């Protein structure tokens, strides 16, 4: 009998939600493990880094990597996985676009450091103890990975063959990708494995979306009773459905809350937040500056609204380091 193809799952700066999506394959996970061997998956299996390092190069058919990259350890692990794997899949918003942890690119390592270790309300730390790269206690040397100023997407660190969007990707998206992989029917390298059109086209509330929307003001969801049948944008609630790639099964809409953009852009868009901002701006009625400011008064956090999952992959990428006196190159892999 021929040896089964090998798969690996790994997480970097992630929350484990993508691993839960694997578990959410439920019974179908048993089908997957009957046709492939999972040789590395820290959340569920007892294989260690050393076991991975001992494998032959390209001996793994595909590695699914979730999470953004922000420490030396994560960088080493994805390079190791790249060399051991024929294909690498960016699995979920964080490895695809930077994800929610990518919002840390609004700050520097040092400002974050002050917040957490010296100014924090429950952390009395008058001596200013900080985590160190190397600590030696009585001759015992302990090391921690270095922490970069800048959160990076997976393809900013290693070559990526395919992308699975979503926070997390749905089990359906994952299963379709695994089936394409195992049957040798993957599309052209570099593809995002999800429908290439906007969520609005598949939205269960599509029929109530007016042809021409002209909003005087956006509303915050806690300030209005949200109708369960009507297009959220038509109700004045900021919904990113017009700019976001479909494939999520409109889960948030079914929860009676707006789309926040976790599936990212379609293939025709370079910068998701820019596209989302432009789509939303086009439904505002106002043409004069004062009226425009009034319309967007309830959108006081545009980065959180439009770049929540995609700041590291955007044209902005991060807040300029020079402004805070940091000279470290923001875009270098060691930055």
């Amino acid at each position: 009998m021929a040896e089964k193809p090998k798969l690996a799952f790994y997480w970097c700066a992630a929350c484990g939600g993508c691993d839960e999506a694997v578990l959410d394959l439920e019974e179908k996970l048993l089908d997957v493990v009957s046709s492939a061997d999972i040789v590395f998956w820290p959340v569920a299996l007892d294989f260690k880094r050393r076991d991975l390092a001992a494998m032959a190069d390209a001996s793994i058919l595909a590695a699914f990597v979730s999470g953004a990259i922000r420490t030396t350890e994560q960088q080493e692990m994805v390079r190791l996985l790249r060399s051991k794997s024929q294909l690498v899949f960016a699995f979920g918003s964080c490895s695809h676009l930077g994800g929610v942890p990518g919002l840390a690119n609004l700050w520097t390592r040092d400002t974050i450091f002050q917040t957490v270790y010296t100014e924090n309300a429950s952390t009395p730390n008058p001596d200013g103890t900080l985590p160190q790269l190397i600590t030696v206690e009585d001759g015992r040397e302990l090391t921690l990975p270095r922490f970069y100023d800048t959160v990076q997407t997976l393809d900013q660190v290693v070559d990526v063959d395919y992308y699975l969007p979503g926070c997390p990707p749905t089990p359906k998206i994952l299963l379709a990708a695994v089936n394409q992989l195992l049957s040798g029917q993957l599309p052209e390298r570099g593809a995002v494995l999800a429908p290439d059109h906007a969520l609005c086209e598949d939205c269960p509330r599509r029929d109530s979306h007016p042809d021409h929307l002209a909003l005087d003001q956006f509303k915050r969801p806690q300030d209005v009773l949200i109708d369960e049948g009507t297009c959220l944008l038509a109700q004045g609630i900021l919904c990113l459905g017009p700019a976001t790639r479909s494939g999520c099964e409109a889960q948030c809409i079914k929860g009676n809350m707006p789309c926040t953009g976790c599936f990212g852009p379609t293939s025709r868009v370079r910068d998701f937040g820019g596209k989302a901002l432009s789509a939303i701006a086009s439904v505002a009625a106002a043409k004069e500056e004062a009226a425009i400011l009034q319309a967007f008064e309830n959108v006081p956090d545009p980065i959180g609204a439009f770049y929540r999952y995609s700041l590291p992959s955007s044209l902005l990428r991060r807040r300029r380091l020079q402004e805070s006196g940091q000279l470290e190159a923001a875009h270098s892999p060691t930055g």
Partner: protein
Amino acid sequence: MAELQQRRISIDPVTRLEGHGKIEIFLDDKGNVDHAYFQVPELRGFEKFCEGRLAEDMPQITSRICGVCPTAHHMAAVKALDSLYQVEPPPAAKMIREAVYSAFVAEDHILHFYFLGGPDFIVGPSAPAAERNVLGVIVKVGLKVGQQVISARRKLRELSAVVGGKAVHPVFGLPGGVAKALKHEEQAQFAQVARETLDFAAFTLETFEKLVLENSDYVNLIRSEAFTHRTYYMGMVDENNQVNFYDGSIRVVSPDGREFAKFHPKEYLDYIAEHVEPWTYVKFCHLKPVGWKGFKEGANGGIYSVGPLARLNASKRMATPLAQQAREKFFATLGSKPVHHTLATHWARIVELLYAAERLQQLSSDPQIADPAVRTLPTQIPREGIGIVEAPRGTLIHHYQTNEKGVIQKANLIVATQNNAARIAMSVEKTAQTYVRNGEISDDILNMVEMALRAYDPCLGCATHAQPGCVPLLIRTRDPLGNIVAVLYRDTDGHVRRNPDLPLG
């Protein structure tokens, strides 16, 4: 597997838990353990990048701290928003929240017992590494039972999705309520799943009793000194001192079981403080009135733990009949209260699974849960809000300060695994000292060390939502009593100095 390099063993990464962790064990000349460290080598940075975000986005942004327990962060955040806007959700909204939360706790406890920690008992601590996992569990208990596990988990997660849109990172929580009401057919689905979950919980308890309690090797292991620490315990209780996951006061008992404190969530800063060590990114919570005395157990050390075992120890009873019955057997069998045996946490988790299922059944059979009124619109100017829930892994605190537009100015998040971090570090060291002898190292010996860790079901992603900076080198030298006698510090420019400002304690 271990990497032995000059009297040093690394377990990297620790597996079958959420997030990144490693264990470093240092051996002496005879090959016995000199010292063992549990390190958390990852961070993200939520407390900082929550600043500038909208308060109402916190339930969805902070759920990304952890995809295993997103509903816990979502709920702590939503309760903090109620407090921030001083708004009381309608009764149906509270019931929907607690029903979803009960379903989530049940599902998460099932995940731990069958997928994460349980394989050590069900398949066996010394089974080959390749079999010590959920697939090995299915081989051991049979495909039929395996399918029951999968089905129970799936149905509970479907309940979260019915209300919250998604099971991973739900979207239903708003200040003053939930985004949509529960329809009658959905209520019927909740009631049906509650019944099935209760059956499954009872089956799980039977399985645990048969596989673990009837095996004297396991019982001796649970009772052994290697897996025992006499610490304080913390958990949320209702007005009758019964375990409650969703709401109540925080109760702390001392190592001898007496009530040490009972406080309102708003008073948490008077009772909880965090200590920073240079060799890990996680901060160590301790009882503020006792203070940080190092990694020392007993009433004079300020270390406490949270989670299933701690909740049973910190409460007086369970609020539902079957869980109460299981709880009585738990304490009668283990002989004392509090129970200090870390591995008993697995049993306590199943007692709680019963409670979660019974509570889900109570809520889903109450007609009021389907009342269409589920929103109270906020009218107050926001300023500050604190929300606490019991996450499956223990007490979880969200604390926000905002400007008058509800934009976050400061966020403080204390998660279950931070509360447990000091006791976890002690557990890793004690089991390493017990099992690693005379330089003998094997996979199953090292797995015993990981078992101590897994009992807590630690969530290291949660524990390191924070994110630090770094300076290159710190050297601390201690006298035989553990006091630090010298500190050498190398600055970023390579300049080495003795720094009197650095911590000596």
